[in-house]
Each structure stands twice: as structure tokens, then as C-alpha cells.
């Protein structure tokens, strides 16, 4: 079958869904590839490059739609495109079915099978097709570059002969893929980077990228009211009004300090939350920059105008471009084409160039929005959960003082009982021994019992890593038995003499050897 990539019709769109490289890989899956002439030009892929990779270059969109069985696109098709399209094609592209229900109906009327790249479920198996993430990654990076372009200073602090340059302070709002990419780019340019997200579990990721996570201060110390995004497939969910208030308060506090704000906060299928209000922009220093990656959905900043760069009265630049990935068309085309190629890979298990739509496959089912004359959107719940639900933080149940006292008393009683028992039994045994044994023995016995106790208590305190030296030193000390031999050696009997001398010899070996080995071992322990 034939896979074809038409030229994008949306104005300013520079990306293309098929690159010479991905075409090469698709051939191995048994597909023939087509491309509309000039489709890759804006992304620096010439027709020649396609031809060299064995892709047939077709003169017009019309011809391409006619010849190809599978159409791959970046942007959702326009209504005109669909109206002109022949029946029964398979389309792989961004669709945004929630926003484009009309379009969906039209495509369905044309009996198309449509796979929406924006609907790829967020499970680890599908990561290789997750075009949203790969585009967001680019957008995040580009946002920093764009900010730097509009910012009149260095990102990195420097001490130069011509004076001291303060580092730029960047605030990234929303630590999704785009946010994290922005954090990475910003820290590597040397800026002080702060980041905020409503999902507290990303704090670790934020910190791993080298930024500082902005925590909200809650008076009651209940930190976990920053919410948990795991059950929404890793995306943020709308937050409560109180939470929002806290958040805005924090931003107001930060606004005069930060030089650059990059907002990436999006909630699936909803307008972007308004997080950077007019008064915050007013509080910012002249020359500051706001990059709003959510501009397409209304923007996180109140003043954002989609696709425009505006400068406010207090000289704050607000950028609302919606085409960040397209501004890096070569990179984004390469990544997007790879995502599409992986999608086709999964669609073609036999590698025979025939796409098979397997409704049992979570990824394909989730992505499919219409098929066989039926609208299959929205998909049923996937069988595999997106992200293992974050374990609910075990809330240490504050026990009331009474409960605590009760518990302690119980434990105390149990241990008292145990001790009493042991003491009772031990005492009885001792009494029994005392009735038969002479006082001279009992004296030694006291010493013995006390020593066992001392030994017991001392040894529990020994560090685990020192157990081997402990063994060596106790071994050395056990040669105290030499004392016995010394006391006997002067006996008149020659056998006793010989045996005692032998015992002294052996014990001496042990004394010297044991202590030396212990010393050697201990000498090796060092701290870094």
C-alpha cells in the first residue's frame, strides 16, 4: 500500500509528516511512499532528497490523495481537504476530536479510518508514538530561545572587567514535557530557574533538571493539597478556587523578581487556566518577557494575543506564538515523522505493507477516532493504566494523646510482664543453684552473669560494618585463656608443664595475630 504526505495547508505550518529517513523505514514495512511536491521545503527537505530516498514525488495534493491509501499529516485536515478527498482513506494526523466534532462527522461521512496522533494513550508502550510529547519538548526549548531573543540581557550571571552581570531569573509554570524541556534549556543557559506545577509529584523531576520547585505555603501545613495528577493520565486537572488563590498569591509575590515567565499550563479539553494576570505583568520589571505556550487555548496570561508578540506599556514583551514546533520545522518534522512511523509500525504487525486496525490493541483503539463508518471517539477506558496511581501518601494518623498513652502503657505492660517472667525464672534457677552450690562458686557466678549482661548490651551497640573487626578482636581477647596456662605451668608435674607450655604458645599466636589483624582491618576504614 502507499503512504502519502501532502503539503500542509494551514498557513505558516512548516512541518511535514514524512521525512526521507522515515520513508526509508516505512519501505522496510512494505509501504510505498509518496510526497506532494514542495511538502518538505519549509522543513529543509527537498524533493530531491525524497527522491533519493526512493519516495515518489507527486505534483498535486489532489493526485496524492487519490494515489495514497494512507495519508499522513501534521495538522488536522481542513474541511475543504476532506470534501475533496476520495472515499475510504486512512488518515494519520493530529485531529483534536473534542474541538473538531464537525470535521470528525465529515471524515466519517467519507468512510475514513482516522488515527488521531493527539489521542495516543499515555502508556509506556506508546511513548514512541507520543507526538504531543515530542512537539511539547520542542516548544519548551524554543520558548526559551524565543525568550532569550526578546530579552536584553544574558541568562548567565558573569563577573567581567566591564562589570557584573546578574543572572536572569526564569519562572516556568507547568512542569509537563514542555515545561521540563524549558527548564532544561533555561538552566543550561545559566539562568536561575524556578518551576511550579499543581502536581507535587513532579517536584522531583523539576529538581532533577536543576530548577527549584516553588511550593505553596499553606497555613495549616497541609502540603499535599497540591494535587495528584496520576489518575488523569499524568495531566493536570482543574484546581479548586482556594488552591488557585494561593497559587496566584505566590505568583504575585514572584512577579517583581522574575525576568522571564514561561507558562505551559494546559488542562486537557478545557481552555487554558488564567495564571499570569494583568497586575502581575504590571509588577514585572521593564524588559521582562512572558512566553505563553498555551496561547492557542486562550493563554495562561491574561494579556496574551494568540500568534502575536505584544509589548505592554511598562515594556514587558508577551509572546503568544502558537507555532513553536513549526518554527523548528526540521527538528519537529523528524520527530513527528518518527512518531508516525512507529504508529504505522504498530499498525503493520506482518510488515507486509497492509495496515491492520486491531480493536483489541489499547494504543490503536485509543487513537482511532473513526472507522468503518462509525465514530469511535471517545475511546473506552484503556486496559492498562496510564501511570501507576501514585500511592496515596500514608497519612500518619495523628493519634490523640490518650491513645498514645494507652498504647505506650500497653507496650510497657507487655514488656514488664516479659521482664518479670524472665526475672522470675532466672531468679528461681539462681536460687536452686544457690541451695546446692558453695558460696565460693556463687561469687564467681555473679561475676559471670554480670559479664554476660555487659557483653549483651555492649555488642548491640556495635556498628554492622564493624562486625568482622569485632569478631577478630573478640577472638584476640578470648586468648585470655593464656592466664589459665600461666597459672598452671609452674606445677611440679612434667605433663602439666608441657601441656601448659603448649597452651601458652597457642594463646600467644592468637593474641598477637588477633590484635594485629584487627588493627589492619580498622586502619582501612576511612571516610570520603
Amino acid at each position, binding site marked *: 500500500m502507499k503512504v502519502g504526505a501532502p503539503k500542509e495547508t494551514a498557513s505558516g505550518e512548516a512541518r511535514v509528516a514524512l521525512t526521507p529517513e522515515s520513508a526509508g523505514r516505512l519501505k522496510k514495512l512494505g509501504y510505498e511512499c509518496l510526497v506532494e511536491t514542495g511538502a518538505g521545503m519549509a522543513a529543509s527537505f527537498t524533493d530531491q532528497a525524497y527522491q533519493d530516498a526512493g519516495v515518489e514525488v507527486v505534483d498535486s495534493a489532489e493526485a496524492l490523495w487519490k494515489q495514497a491509501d494512507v495519508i499522513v499529516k501534521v495538522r488536522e485536515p481542513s474541511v475543504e481537504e476532506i470534501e475533496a478527498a476520495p472515499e475510504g482513506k486512512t488518515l494519520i494526523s493530529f485531529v483534536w476530536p473534542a474541538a473538531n466534532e464537525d470535521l470528525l462527522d465529515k471524515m466519517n461521512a467519507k468512510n475514513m479510518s482516522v488515527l488521531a496522533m493527539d489521542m495516543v494513550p499515555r502508556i509506556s508502550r506508546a511513548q514512541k508514538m507520543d507526538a504531543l510529547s515530542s512537539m511539547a519538548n520542542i516548544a519548551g526549548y524554543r520558548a526559551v530561545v524565543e525568550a532569550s531573543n526578546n530579552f536584553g540581557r544574558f541568562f548567565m550571571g558573569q563577573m567581567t572587567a566591564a562589570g557584573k552581570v546578574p543572572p536572569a531569573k526564569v519562572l516556568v509554570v507547568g512542569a509537563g514535557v514542555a515545561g521540563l524541556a524549558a527548564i532544561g534549556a533555561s538552566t543550561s543557559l545559566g539562568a536561575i530557574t524556578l518551576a511550579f506545577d499543581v502536581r507535587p509529584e513532579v517536584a522531583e523531576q523539576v529538581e532533577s533538571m536543576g530548577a527549584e520547585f516553588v511550593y505553596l505555603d499553606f497555613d495549616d501545613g497541609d502540603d499535599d493539597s497540591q494535587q495528584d495528577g496520576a489518575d488523569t493520565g499524568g495531566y493536570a486537572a482543574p484546581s479548586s478556587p482556594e488552591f488557585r488563590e494561593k497559587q496566584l498569591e505566590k505568583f504575585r509575590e514572584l512577579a517583581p523578581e522574575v525576568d522571564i515567565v514561561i507558562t505551559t499550563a494546559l488542562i486537557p479539553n478545557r481552555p487554558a487556566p488564567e495564571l499570569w494576570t494583568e497586575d502581575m505583568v504590571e509588577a514585572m520589571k521593564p524588559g521582562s518577557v512572558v512566553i505563553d505556550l498555551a496561547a492557542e487555548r486562550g493563554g495562561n496570561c491574561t494579556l496574551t494575543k494568540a500568534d502575536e508578540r505584544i509589548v505592554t506599556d511598562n515594556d514587558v514583551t508577551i509572546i503568544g506564538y502558537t507555532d513553536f514546533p513549526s518554527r523548528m520545522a526540521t527538528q519537529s518534522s523528524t520527530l513527528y515523522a518518527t512518531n508516525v512511523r512507529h504508529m504505522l509500525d504498530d499498525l503493520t504487525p506482518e510488515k507486509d505493507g497492509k495496515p491492520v486496525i486491531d480493536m483489541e490493541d489499547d494504543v490503536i483503539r485509543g487513537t482511532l477516532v473513526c472507522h468503518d463508518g462509525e465514530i469511535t471517539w471517545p475511546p473506552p477506558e484503556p486496559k492498562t493504566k496510564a501511570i501507576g496511581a501514585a500511592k496515596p501518601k500514608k497519612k500518619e494518623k495523628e493519634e490523640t494523646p490518650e491513645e498514645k498513652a494507652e498504647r505506650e502503657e500497653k507496650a510497657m505492660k507487655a514488656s514488664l510482664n516479659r521482664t518479670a517472667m524472665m526475672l522470675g525464672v532466672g531468679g528461681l534457677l539462681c536460687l536452686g543453684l544457690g541451695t*546446692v*552450690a558453695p558460696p*565460693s*562458686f556463687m561469687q*564467681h557466678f555473679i*561475676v*559471670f552473669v554480670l*559479664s*554476660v549482661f555487659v*557483653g*549483651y548490651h*555492649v*555488642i548491640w551497640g556495635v556498628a554492622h560494618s564493624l*562486625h*568482622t*573487626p*569485632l*569478631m577478630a*578482636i*573478640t577472638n*584476640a*581477647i*578470648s*586468648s*585470655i*585463656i593464656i*592466664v589459665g*596456662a*600461666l*597459672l*598452671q*605451668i*609452674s*606445677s*611440679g608435674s612434667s605433663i*602439666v608443664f608441657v*601441656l601448659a607450655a*603448649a*597452651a*601458652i*604458645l*597457642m*594463646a*600467644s*599466636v592468637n*593474641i*598477637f*595475630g588477633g590484635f*594485629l*589483624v*584487627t*588493627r*589492619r582491618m*580498622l*586502619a*582501612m*576504614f*576511612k*571516610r*570520603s
Partner: protein
Amino acid sequence: MSNGLITAAYVVAAVLFILALGGLSNQEKAKRAIWYGIVGMALAVAATIGTSGVEQYITIALMVIIGGIAGWFVAKRVQMTQMPELVAGFHSLVGLAAVFIGINAHLEMTLALAAKEAGTVAELAGFAATIAKKTALELNILKVELFLGILIGAITFTGSIIAYGKLSGKLSSAALTLPGRHLLNLTAIIACLALGWLYLDGAGLWTMILVALIAGAIGCHLILAIGGADMPVVVSMLNSYSGWAAAAIGFTLGNDLLIVTGALVGSSGAILSYIMCKGMNRSFVSVILGGWGGESSGSADVDGDMVSADADDVAAAVEDADNIVIVPGYGMAVAQAQSAVSELTKKLRGQGKRVRFAIHPVAGRLPGHMNVLLAEAKVPYDIVLEMEEINEDFPDTDVVIIIGANDIVNPAAQDDPGSPIAGMPVLEVWKARQVFVCKRGQGTGYSGIENPLFFKDNTRMFYGDAKASMEALLKELG
């Protein structure tokens, strides 16, 4: 020296010994602790020599010097990896010395009694003189103590020799399981007790010599029946025995210093054994009675293949990793790979990676064995962590490198209730992203149990001698 002075010296020595053991609570203090032990020992020996009635100074000096040189020589020469067998070997000396002293005590007792009857008590010196003053009851107690001293001493002696043989590889490490071995042990113990009874009844030296022989046989058999993986427990158990033997002799001789020290050593060994057993989730009794082999028929077979990797695969994975955990085992000790491992650690840490060591409580053949080896190779001890400290971190770990360890990373302990090691706490390495197992061959480990870890998808086998493998890896890392 007056008796008061000698007792004072003994008290000081006993306190010093306690300080020596207590000082091991942390590494920095430990270096001081050893001097407490040395000074205590010197004081005890000097005070004893100064006791009235002790003569033969030349022989004593000669024996101490010869023994001292021999001990010094052995301890200087021994490799750190040979520590376990060295300690076991040393224990045997203490055991044999206890037997000798016990027999001596009997001889002196006969001597003293004979003198008493002949009315020449006044001519007796030293220990014999004290015996002569004892009542009949005290003499009976003395006999019991003597019996115990010889019994425990003999078990320690032969047990330690067998342990030495097993640890140094001169004997097979597999558990010897004679049919009816528990019955055998029981019979032998009963025979010893019977002989002891005869001895109390007035029978001569022959009973004690027989007891020594039978106890020796028990010692042999006990340790032979204990499998290789339980060896750490055995060593600390023998350590404990040698202490009890010293304490028993202390009772016999009426010497409090011996009693104190013996009890200290005895209880310390017992607690160490207990800690070890807990680390393996096994009851103390079952370890002592020994023998895993043969009884473990329930262990499940493992499906799948072992996939091998070579040095450059490992190097590539390690280079990509940020968080690396190294799990050393006895194989590292055998191959003397610790300095290569240390080198590797240094290099990786130099590249800004987080490298840590995970030490299982029973890794190696001695408690704390791995710590000693790593310390020898100058691995900083604050990156060497215990099992409980690091087990939760494995899911966040990029690469785990297992060097010559097997049972302590065996998931069967958790998954397979039929496994002989079921329930033993293990390092959960399989939760890491990638596991490399550095191992000599495909065979099972010391305990002879199949390890399903080696068949897991994220496990790669890095075959070869641990030292050679680590050096190859170092070379790849450049």
C-alpha cells in the same frame, strides 16, 4: 605482687576489654578501642606472671615470643580475603588450649588430692595449693566446670578446623548429611554426659580424654553438616564457643578475669550469630543442626534464558546511568576484585554519577566481610549502605552491578515459597532498570540454589572472573 594488686590489675583489664568491644560502635572510635584491648591483655598477662607461685619465666618468655612471632607473621601475611579462615583457624587454637588447660586442671587436682592424703600439702604451689583447700562439694563443682571446659574446648577445636578447611576451599563446602545425623549427635552428647557422670563418680582421666575425643567428633560432624551459605553464622558461633570455654576454665581455676572475658566473648559471639540468622530469616537451631541440601525439593524450575553481555555492553549502560548500585558478594572477595571495584567507583564518581554499595547482612563469609574488603580498597564508607537503607532505592536505580553475589539477590526468597531460602530478606535488585551479574560461570551459587534473577529480562550475565571483568570494564570506560 600482692593478691590485692593482682585483683586490681584484673579489674582494670576487664574494664579495658569492655571498652575495647564497646568502642566498636563507630569507625572513628574503633581505632582507639583496639589499644584498650592490647593494654588490657598485656596487663592481664603481666599480673598473672607476677602472681606468687608462677615460675618458669624462661619457658613462658620463650613460648610467648615464639607464639607471638608466629601470630605476627601469619597476621601480616594474610590477605584480607582470607580473613574468615584466619579467624576460624585462630579459634581452633583457643579451643585446643582450653582442652589442655582442662586436662592440666585434672592432673593438678589428682596431684593435690594425693598430696593431701600424704599430708604434704604445704609443698604444693599455685593452682594445686588452692585445690587442696577445697571441700568435697567444691571439688564436684570443679569437676563439672572442668568437664564443660573440655567439652566446649574440643568442639571449638575441631569445629574451627573444619570451618577453616571449608572456608579456605580445602574441604567441599557442601553440607554433609549423614543419615540419622541428629540421632548421631544426640548419642554422642549422651555418651559425653554419661562419661561426665562417671568422672564425677570418681573415674579417672580416661573419661575426660574420651570426652575430648567424642566432643571433637561432634565438632567435626556439626560443622561438616552446615552448608556454605551458613558459614558466617558458624564462624561467629565458634567465636562464642571459644568464649564459653574460656569462662568454664575460669570457673575451674577460680579466676574472675577469665570468667569476665570469656562471658564477654561468649555473649558477643552469640548475639552476632543471632543477628546473622535474623539476616537470613532462619532459626538459630536449624542453622546449627545444619544441612540444606537434599531437603529442598520444592524449589521451582526456572524458565527462560540467561543472556550474556560483554564489557562494552556493560560500559555503555554504565555510561548512560546516573544512579548506580554495586552489590558485592563472596565472588568479589575470592577474585580479589575489590581494588578494581574501588577504581571503578572512583572513576564513575568522578564523572558525577551516584555510585553506592549495597551490603547484605550475610554477604561474604563473615559478618561485615564486604565492608572490610571495601574499606581495604579505600571505598569511602559513607557510600556503603546496608540492605534496609538501600532496598527502597532500587526502583530508581539505573544500573545494578552484582559482583559475585547470588543468594542475597535471589528473588525466589520472596516469590517462591518452596525455595529453601524463602522468607530470607534479599536485596531487591531486580527492580532496577538494568542488572548486570558478574559471575564466573552458569553454575549455581554457594548454596546450590537456582537464581531466577539471572533469567529476568532486565538481567545480563557478565561472565568471567570478577577481577578480570572489572578491569576489562575499566578499560572500556577509558
